[in-house]
């Protein structure tokens, strides 16, 4: 599963991951492999990536949108701290 995290200023992250947890508007949710296509707006909070070796990476974002389609995730964040 591939994820791209971009802000208007730069690309923050691109790579393969096992799962990602994002702060959705209606509550935080996790995306695993073969997730149904979804578009959701995001709140301020942490995005937790788990890479194939099980290592966690955390980004703090301030609002954004996520699109998941065919194991490709695109996360547009307003800004990343």
């Amino acid at each position, binding site marked *: 599963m591939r994820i*791209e995290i*971009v*802000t*208007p*200023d*730069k*690309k923050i992250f691109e790579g393969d991951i096992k799962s990602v947890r994002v702060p*959705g*508007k*209606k509550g935080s949710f996790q995306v695993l492999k073969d997730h*149904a*296509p*979804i*578009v*959701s*707006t995001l709140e301020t909070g942490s995005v937790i990536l788990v890479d194939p070796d099980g290592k966690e990476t955390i980004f703090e974002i301030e609002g954004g*949108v996520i*699109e998941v*389609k065919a194991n490709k995730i*695109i996360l*547009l964040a*307003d*800004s990343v701290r």
Partner: protein
Amino acid sequence: MANLKAIRIRIASVKSTRQITSAMKMVSAAKLRKAQDKIVRLRPYANKLYEILVGLSQSLSDSEIDNAYGRVSAPDKVLLVVITSNRGLCGAFNANVIKEARRIVSEKYPDQFRKGNLQLLTIGKKGFDYFRKQSVKMLPEQNNLLNDLTFDNVSKVVDQLMKSFTSGEFDRVELIYNQFKNAAVQNLTYEVFLPVQSVTPGKEKIVPVDYIYEPTQEEIIKELIPKSLKIQFYKAVLDSFVAEHGARMTAMHKATDNATGMIKDLTLQYNKARQATITNQILEVVSGAEALRG
């Protein structure tokens, strides 16, 4: 024949000017590259956002979208955003924008101007310095934006603009800026920023995917429209910023070329003068010797 010393001093001074202009050209080239990178980095975000927006609006009709930024009314109160540069020495870059702004004020919005309903927001010191001396109402200038050009800073300004649009302080917000085409060419651009035109899907068909929308399509669209507005504004400022460095690079390149040509001419003049004096001196010696022989 001009005197030798004067020409020598002149050559030295032109040479040092050339050194400065060619250094400035190099600095601009480096800054141009850096600024262009910023645009390239913005592109994936802008494209994706646009794609999502188009996908959403395809399944919704315009009336379903409650869009506060699409309020179309008679343009009684107008805000012109004039984007120039903070520094000069970039050819006609700023003059073009100022001229266009003046033309729009006098041709398109003379009534609003007379009633004092036309306001300007200047980004860039050059535009600010010019319009400050005119009898135009101005919002506080945003010249610092260009010194630290990040999306965060720009979006603060756009937030304010959007707020004053929704509260009815302005009926129309328009942008005037230089769009970057290549290092030598800038396109003067005049576009409507608010009210937003509805998103019209281009020719490219986006295959409809059955998305889950969270929370709802309407709410997502409501949140995405301000975002895409910010992107549009940010892109305009970035474009102008890149164009500025392009224009300065070209202007400095021309100045360097002119200095080189001038040095060549002056050197020729100098050599001619030098030879003339030598000829004169020989003539004097020969005729002196001739007179002695008597």
